């Protein structure tokens, strides 16, 4: 039966403020060029029942970027870059359902743009790691300094990364998995 060939799928969210490098990170580890889907906001968020809602309400779309990593012949990982703008966050609830965990990306030059993302996952008890994107390739602050300035608890890993680099992005994902595995072992 054809359906039985279908692989199992899992997802991880790549979150953070606008322009912090989410799409870049998805693209650097994905086996496909990041794909994009656009959703009319009214349908995505407001639950309209008819087209009148779409026609009358301010016509906007919310875009979602994602990539794919085939882990083995039975298991495929999807990476979803979350929409950056705060007003689109109702999308995140849908996205977050069934996610293994999240990466919160930080632009080292303006960490405050990712505060809201950190908040989102903390509130929902969704495990996450913080990855600091160095942008000009340098990392002026050590991870511990960043942890302090973000008031992150000790159990949230903070990593320095370059979202453009495949191995660097992969290592961030591996750090997230190590966190998940450690907490699953603790039960």
């Amino acid at each position, binding site marked *: 039966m054809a359906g039985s060939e279908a692989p*199992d799928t899992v997802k991880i969210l790549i979150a953070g403020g606008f322009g912090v490098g989410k799409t870049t990170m998805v693209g650097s580890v994905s086996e496909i060029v990041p794909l994009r889907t656009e959703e009319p906001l009214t*349908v995505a968020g407001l639950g309209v029942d008819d087209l009148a809602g779409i026609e009358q309400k301010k016509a906007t779309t919310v875009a979602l970027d994602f990539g794919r990593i085939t882990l083995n012949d039975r298991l495929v990982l999807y990476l979803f870059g979350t929409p950056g703008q705060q007003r689109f966050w109702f999308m995140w609830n849908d996205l977050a359902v*069934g996610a293994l965990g999240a990466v919160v990306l930080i632009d080292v030059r303006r960490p405050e743009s990712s505060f809201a993302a950190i908040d989102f996952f903390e509130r929902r008890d969704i495990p996450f790691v913080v990855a600091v994107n160095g942008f000009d390739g340098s990392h002026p602050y050590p991870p511990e300094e960043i942890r302090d300035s973000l008031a992150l608890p000790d159990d949230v890993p903070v990593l320095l990364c370059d979202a453009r680099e495949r191995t660097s992005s992969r290592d961030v994902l591996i750090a997230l998995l190590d966190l998940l595995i450690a907490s699953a072992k603790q039960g």
Partner: protein
Amino acid sequence: MSESDAVAGRLVRPFTLTGGRTRPSRACFTLIATVTAVDPPPDHAPRPQPEQARILRRCARPVAVAELAALLDLPVSVVVIMLCDLLEAGLITVHPPHPVTDRTLDLDLLQKVRDGLGRL
């Protein structure tokens, strides 16, 4: 036509494919659920509409709902409604994502994900 009218038109047009419906009849088509065309299609199956045939061609092999939407350049919500119709017609099968619920993350799954990442 103003720019916002143009955007509204672009947003509404795909919903003509659903006969104006904006709500799916089933909840099984989440972003990473995979769908596969039934091959050969069942004898009693209705002849697919052109846009349905486009979907069926794209899922000759298993494909995730989000990918299907991106490849077809349609909103996920539109694709999902069309998939509900195709499922009801017996033309596709759907495979749900690996279940992930709070605190029941199974170690075996996590280890497989980690191993796969380690091979990259």
